[in-house]
């Protein structure tokens, strides 16, 4: 009887101790772009959201997204593709923004960012997680974007320059003959008055 209660007590303690694994934190990372269109040589803003869902603080968080945006294809305007934070408190929601400039047009794939962190300050065991991905995107050329969105002032000025000979030349002919006719008319009136 005594041994039975001891065994039950031991079983309960072991179950309770193993439950502490669920008390660890987990970091969720989302990766999105705020652009409606991705245009060559124009800003591409990528937003990383980090959320610490668990009850404890996590340490030494490193985000690495260099593989998605190689430097031959993208230029970094502001921000860094390898940010790090010393600690993220429990329940904290952080945002990191990187602004890139695509150098080439066409279809491009941007994959997951790799995030590593430590669950406790002393335990240096590193936990690795991946962010969400944006996937395949179409980078349009600057010309396509301008066709839809630029102010077209230069186009209209050129159009006016090309259309003006069609309008000005006949007008000039008519004006010349009209002024000649009117001057003849006024000369006639003058001679009639003199008579």
């Amino acid at each position: 009887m005594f041994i039975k209660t001891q065994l039950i007590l031991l079983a309960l303690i072991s179950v309770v101790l193993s439950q502490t694994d669920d008390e660890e934190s987990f970091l969720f990372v989302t990766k999105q772009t705020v652009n409606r269109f991705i245009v060559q040589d124009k800003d591409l803003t990528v937003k990383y959201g980090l959320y610490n869902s668990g009850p404890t603080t996590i340490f030494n968080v490193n985000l690495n997204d260099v593989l998605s945006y190689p430097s031959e294809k993208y230029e970094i305007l502001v921000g860094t593709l390898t940010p790090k934070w010393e600690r993220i408190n429990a329940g904290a929601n952080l945002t990191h923004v990187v602004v890139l400039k695509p150098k080439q047009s066409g279809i491009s794939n941007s994959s997951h960012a790799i995030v590593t962190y430590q669950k406790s300050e002393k335990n240096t065991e590193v936990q690795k997680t991946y962010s969400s991905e944006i996937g395949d995107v179409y980078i349009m050329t600057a010309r396509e974007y301008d066709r839809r969105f630029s102010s077209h002032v230069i186009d209209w000025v050129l159009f006016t320059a090309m259309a003006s000979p069609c309008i000005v030349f006949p007008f000039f002919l008519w004006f010349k003959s009209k002024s000649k006719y009117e001057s003849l008319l006024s000369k006639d009136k003058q001679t009639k008055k003199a008579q």
Partner: protein
Amino acid sequence: MLRLVLAILAVLAFAQGESCESPQFQVASYSTRDGRLAAESAAELEITVKCKSGKQPSTLYADINGQTVPCAQSIGSPGKYFVSIAVVSHKQLTSGRTTVRLYDDDSYSAMRKARTDEAVRAVKPFGTVELNHPGVSYGPWLPSEFFAVTIFGAVWWAAYRERSRILA
């Protein structure tokens, strides 16, 4: 006695070397300018901190619009700290100058201990930087087609009036 004095001086020197004295900030900032290219607004401050003692603060916290967030640091460039703001609509990112207060570890813990709003504001920050957001543009007020139509319409109308006068 001399050893005690030396020890105290050494401790003071060491303590002074730990914190950053009179920091200087260099800021490169970015904010969303084109309202048709981006659906949401975002802003970023890249702050380079130079300390007289040469030692960089280990963490910096930024207070943006009442929210205090830790700054990101870059692995490649040690003296740089990044502050990011991302909002859902273009209107939420206020245009003009916004002051961002920076706190290092000491001032951050002092701020956390403060209980009232006034005490929070009384905590001396590590430094302040400014974010200048010129605003978001949605394109020209009047499209160029409007001007083209009005000018060519006026030319046509003048010619039509003259023609009716001649024929009448």
